């Protein structure tokens, strides 16, 4: 029980070892076995969820020596807190679904494909639970490789371009991050920090100029992964070329690495720099929301449209993070999960029709609702969740992000971002209308079969989550709340605390005045009585009831 995290992480690798011994011809055994492995991993990960104590600390911690090379001390140091908990669960939850989704789509090199998926799972979970920064980096790099192959081997026509683009884009960022990690470690070891544990580095008060450069390196690496405008162009290509499971994993989990990186590393390690760059990053996030929505609107390929919608959604996540308050951060964390669920589901939906028609062009469809009613219903629910209709998960996250943003210094950014809710409705509903509504006049579409049992089984858990998280999100929020609160207080930079104190100290002279007026409000008039507020008093003092009498 104590190393449940390691168990969850390495179960897929164990599966890989056994996969080696399964002959590559027996495809259904390969599939069934991989599915079983991911399912067991999910069930095991539920123990993490049930055993998780609602507090701000890292739990299920395993911390053993790993590599000691010269001045560098790396430890196998892992644990989950409220921030990573749900991301781990999301990962283990999405995996069996992705395996199921490629039951029929992948016929070629099934064994290799399944190995890729399992390695991917280990690296994703590993990255979320790493406390040791070097360990995180290893997993971060490791996950690129299976994804590279998944797109490059089982992808569409233009897969080589897409996979190279994906790989190099991310690699550039990673290298910057690596350099920053090493530099950070050097500074840390001078300050007496013994190893790579990120927890030590949180307390390291770096010089603002150092912070700035380090933040830039981290922020760039993570911004590529998110991806933020204008570093997003690898995403539509990667998504359109990737096989369905690749898209699902990429969108649902891998993109979260970027936003998670901000929350876990870039911001708490360099809070002052983060505050300094907040306006810039918020601007990019908001541009991303609007820009991606507009570009999504005119896409001709459904999958590309969904990919651009991802960029817009993650813009909301970034905005919430940089609100630096509890609502914004909670909203972002929720939105990461929501995006995982609903965009994952959208890619599955796209996969369903692609497998049937081998096209994703919107103009090739129309009127499918008549032919495929179950599909239509599910598609509609997922679409609504993506738009963020209340009652679905998408609303809760988006709302908290927006209200958090509005309370923060990013008010005007939030106003612009909020207009994104309009555009989201436009592009999603327009696409839905063109695919599902209208006359069923394309003869190729008239023979389409509705979803089969397997496909329904894949979708149902996602649909349930869409409603559960929309109607009763508080259990999700409660688990992450202490960690989020801690994070928010942690990233309030020291200088800001000082400034706040200074501000509080200065207006001593006014204090007497304000005391007086507030006393008047509280004692002088009964509750509910229409007291004229202070602002009003100066303009129309004559009609104050008390003075009039």
């Amino acid at each position, binding site marked *: 029980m104590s190393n449940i995290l390691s168990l969850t992480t390495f179960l897929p690798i164990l599966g890989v070892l056994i996969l080696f011994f399964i002959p590559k011809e027996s495809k259904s055994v390969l599939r069934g076995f991989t599915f079983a492995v991911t399912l067991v991993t999910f069930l095991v990960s539920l123990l993490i969820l049930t055993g998780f104590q609602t507090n701000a600390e890292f739990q299920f911690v395993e911390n053993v020596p790993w590599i000691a090379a010269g001045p560098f001390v790396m430890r196998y140091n892992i644990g989950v807190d409220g921030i990573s908990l749900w991301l781990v669960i999301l990962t283990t939850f999405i995996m069996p679904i992705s395996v199921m989704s490629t039951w029929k789509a992948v016929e070629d090199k099934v064994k290799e494909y399944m190995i890729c998926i399992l390695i991917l799972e280990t690296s994703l979970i590993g990255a979320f639970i790493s406390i040791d920064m070097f360990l995180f980096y290893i997993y971060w790099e490791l996950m690129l490789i299976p994804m590279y192959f998944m797109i490059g081997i089982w992808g569409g026509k233009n897969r080589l371009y897409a996979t190279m683009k994906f790989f190099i884009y991310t690699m550039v960022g990673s290298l910057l991050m690596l350099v920053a990690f090493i530099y950070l470690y050097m500074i840390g070891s001078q300050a007496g920090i013994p190893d790579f544990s990120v927890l030590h580095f949180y307390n390291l008060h770096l010089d603002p100029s150092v912070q700035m450069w380090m933040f830039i390196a981290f922020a760039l690496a993570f911004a590529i992964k998110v991806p933020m405008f*204008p570093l997003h162009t690898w995403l539509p290509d990667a998504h359109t070329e990737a096989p369905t499971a690749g898209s699902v994993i990429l969108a649902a989990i891998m993109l979260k690495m970027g936003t998670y990186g901000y929350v876990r590393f870039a911001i708490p390690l360099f809070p002052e720099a983060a505050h300094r760059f907040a306006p810039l990053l918020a601007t990019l996030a908001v541009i991303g929301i609007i820009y991606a929505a*507009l570009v999504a609107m005119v896409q001709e390929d459904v999958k590309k449209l969904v990919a651009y919608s991802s960029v817009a959604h993650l813009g909301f996540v970034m905005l919430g993070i940089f609100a630096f308050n509890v609502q914004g951060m909670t909203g972002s964390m929720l939105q990461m999960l929501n995006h995982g669920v609903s965009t994952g589901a959208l890619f599955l939906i796209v996969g369903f029709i692609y497998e049937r028609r081998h096209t994703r062009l919107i103009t090739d469809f129309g009127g499918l609702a008549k032919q495929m009613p179950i599909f239509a219903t599910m598609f509609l629910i997922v679409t609504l969740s993506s738009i963020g209709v209340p009652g679905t998960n998408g*609303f*809760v996250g988006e709302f*908290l992000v927006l209200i958090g943003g509005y309370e923060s210094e990013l008010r005007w950014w939030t106003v612009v971002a909020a207009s994104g809710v309009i555009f989201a*409705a436009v592009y999603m509903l327009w696409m839905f209308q063109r695919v599902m509504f209208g006359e069923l006049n394309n003869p190729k579409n008239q023979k389409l079969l509705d979803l089969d049992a397997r496909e329904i089984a894949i979708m149902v858990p996602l649909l349930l989550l869409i409603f559960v998280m929309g109607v009763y999100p*508080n259990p999700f929020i409660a688990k992450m709340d202490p960690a989020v609160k801690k994070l928010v207080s942690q990233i309030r930079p020291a200088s800001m605390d000082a400034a706040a104190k200074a501000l509080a100290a200065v207006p001593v002279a006014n204090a007497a005045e304000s005391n007086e007026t507030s006393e008047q409000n509280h004692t002088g008039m009964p509750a509910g009585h*229409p007291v*004229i507020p202070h602002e009003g008093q100066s303009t129309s003092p004559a*009609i104050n009831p008390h003075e009039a009498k």
Partner: protein
Amino acid sequence: MFDNVWLIPILPFIGFLINGLFGKKIKNETVIGTIAAGAVFGSFIVSCMTLYKLLSLGSEERLAEVKFFSWITSGTFNADVAFLIDPLSCIMIMIVSGVGFLIHLYSIAYMHGEEGFYRYFAYLNLFTFSMFLLVLGNNLLLMFVGWEGVGLCSYLLIGYYFHKKSAGDAGKKAFVMNRVGDFGFLLGLFTLFWYMGSTHNVWTITFSEMAKTSHLLPTGGVVTVITLCFFLGATGKSAQIPLYTWLPDAMEGPTPVSALIHAATMVTAGVYMIARMNYLFIRSPETLTVIAVIGACTALFAATIGTAQNDIKRVLAYSTVSQLGYMFLAMGVGAFGAGVFHLMTHAFFKACLFLGSGAVIHSMHGALHHAHSHDDAQDMRNMGGLKSKMPITFATFLLATIAIAGIPGFSGFFSKDEILWQAFSNPHHGSLNILLWGMGAIAAGLTAFYMFRLVFMTFFGECRITPKAKDHLHESPLVIVIPLIVLAGLSVVGGYIGIPKVIGEVLGGIPNYFEHYLDPVFKYSEEYMSVHGAHGGIHNIALEWGLMGTSVLIAIIGITVAYALYVSNTGIPVKFVAAFPALHRAVYNKWYIDELYDFMIVNPCKSFSQFLWKGFDVIVIDGAVNGVAKSVMALSGVFRLMQTGLLSNYAWSMAFGVVVMLSYFILK
């Protein structure tokens, strides 16, 4: 006390689940219809009980909140799933469940034989559920859930005949325009929450707490911003200028849907919202002016369009937009009670009118179908003389028309007259009042005109349908007729619970029950007004009688003109059109507002997006990315040349390097 209030929304929700999940297997229309209508009837019973309990309380105690669970809690923000029961929400649930039940009942016959029968009733129940959430929610966010929920159902039901492109387009248009409004709603919510929280440490979005702390708000300033944002939300949902154009298009949906959603209930949500937060709106004279002016303009503007439409449902649609304008006019002049009163009477007579038109269309459709004619069943030019064929429909329709036209004694008269008088006499807008009253009065005349035009074209004169089809015209079945009769009855008597004071006094001191009933809801506004300018406004009984007479006269003129043009001298409209072709074209084409929006917003947005994608994304960003890749390749091509593998080359370059370094150190 109100323990069973949760049943009100849950019953239709259960109906939705049953019909939505199993309706396809149930197949039997009677079962499906009974489940759906029965669920809403159950809500109606519980609503009646709730109202009864509320009335048994003293007027000061008529406010209860029932909490079910915490929905979203994060930091200072909390939103519960909890219901607010007060006179306002009670009157709304009565309207929604009562009118809703009648329309469900009606739909059973109207939708008979439709392919997606179960889908229709599932959506209709889901709508009813959402509408209950909207009016019962005790906080802004739960209201917003209902607010979006009804919008979604509206989208689904407008697009019910989804194989028609026009239906899909209309649904999308409705949803998107509502979203523009929602954007405003959200900003209003944010600003209110943030302002009250950061300046007064009151972090709430609960209506009752907002009301209690509303004295902390200033007059104007930030409140103007908040209320204008909310009002933007209202213009979307309630189809006011500038976001009204979706409602006429929404007539693509089945007619009972138009009656329930696009006349009686959903579109009044904006009015309800303002009434619910009256204590905010009363604090911003600027917003009140905006609301009053927009309301009056919409009332007048939509009425002009209504005069030239030939599609029976479109006339009613513009009429709805126009009547909603009256309600907003009432809100804008601070006459919240009068606005809600008109909301109620309008629900009666407009639902009756829509259902009546549905009966006509249904009959026409059947007749044309029998005759294998492709004439438009909704075009009034194909109708005429139906009063002998469909006497009950005609009678109920006529009663409702008299009610909307504002003839004394009928419900519409009481509510509309109250609004017009308040528009004239309210203390908020100074000399603007006369203009507001004038616009309202002219719109009333136009209303009387276009409604009677509709009645004359549809039910009077000669039957213009093909003779073969004519014999197939028939009165509708009982399930359709009964709701018509009930609603027509309500259209006649519904006004007597809110008799204006001047008339009540003449009749022997009958109080305005409706206004007294709603008093607790507007308590905080009253208190505010009693401090701020209670002495404004006009109290002149003679003048009130005079204005009342004037508006009745205007209505009668409208009716007379309609009679003259469409019964006694039917040649005039043709001549009029011939004389002013441009004017007629403009009015007939709805003043080209849709085209204007397309030209100014939709098309530029599309081309800009195309540019962003193909210009910016592909050429600029990817151009840069691929450019870097290409230059790296080119550069490595150059570097490759240096790795020749020839020792002498390497020696030369070493020597060159040594020379460079040496010269650097020497010259330094």
